[in-house]
């Protein structure tokens, strides 16, 4: 039968690889290679995306984080952050769905200081109504220093 404009759909035909073969390839090649790289220590600086204090942060080692709330930990306490969404190095990235396992990544941080923010002025004013309210707000803040990000070769 002759080919017309309606014989094939207008979108390009995409053939996806076979799921069984792809799972085999993934398990054999990719996981083995990445495990090998991790256990050999062949990665430079690691970065991680961590969910902490209801916000997501992209962090590396030795960097400072400031949260706009109170943390129930004294200054100098070591903290382990458990909700890690993504860990990456130069050659590979481990993406969590949505979180990565706790036996795979370890992110350590120390509480450095607990202060208040600079005095922010909250003012409301309605003109011609003799209404003005002024309030000075100082939020409590906590500063953390990310000590280390470690990964262990227990992929599967």
């Amino acid at each position: 039968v002759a080919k017309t404009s309606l014989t094939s759909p207008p979108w390009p035909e995409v053939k996806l690889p076979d799921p069984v073969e792809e799972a085999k390839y993934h398990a054999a090649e990719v996981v083995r290679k990445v495990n090998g790289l991790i256990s050999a220590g062949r990665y430079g600086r690691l970065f991680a995306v961590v969910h902490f204090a209801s916000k997501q942060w992209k962090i590396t080692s030795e960097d400072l984080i400031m949260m706009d709330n109170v943390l129930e930990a004294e200054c100098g306490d070591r903290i382990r952050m458990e909700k890690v969404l993504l860990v990456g190095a130069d050659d590979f990235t481990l993406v969590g769905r949505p979180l990565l396992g706790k036996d795979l990544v370890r992110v350590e941080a120390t509480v450095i200081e607990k202060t208040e923010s600079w005095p922010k002025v909250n003012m409301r004013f309605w003109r011609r109504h003799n209404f003005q309210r002024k309030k000075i707000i100082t939020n409590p803040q906590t500063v953390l220093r990310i000590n280390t990000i470690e990964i262990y070769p227990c992929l599967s």
Partner: protein
Amino acid sequence: MVVLSAARWVRSRLSDRFWRVQEVLKYARHFRGRKNRCYKLAVRSVRRAFVRSTKARREKKRFLRGLWITRIEAASLEHGLKYPAFISNLLKSQVELNRKVLADLAIYEPKTFKSLAALAQRRRQEGFLAALGDGKEPEGIFSRIVHHH
């Protein structure tokens, strides 16, 4: 002479007027024109400045989210995906990164962003395949090709 109450013609006078005025003027020192020097004009300007800063603190969140979305859109277009396709497919693959972090990755970790774009593209194709089904026509339907016997 015993004085039981203060004399009536003594009124109390302000002694710290200077500091009360400086409290307001210190917030106006970087303004333009006479409102950085004259109290009467400065009071109005400082009040408007405070009110605007309170409102801006709420608007900043909206503005930054739009900025992140623009950046993610630009980065995903570089990899051949549009922003709605990228975000929806990432969410369907259970990757819950927010727009702030995606924008940071797009700027500072281009390889990671490329892999995320590839993940979203692959999930998109799988979604299309699942929606199309087998590709066969349902039974009992007249097709274009009619065979005469």
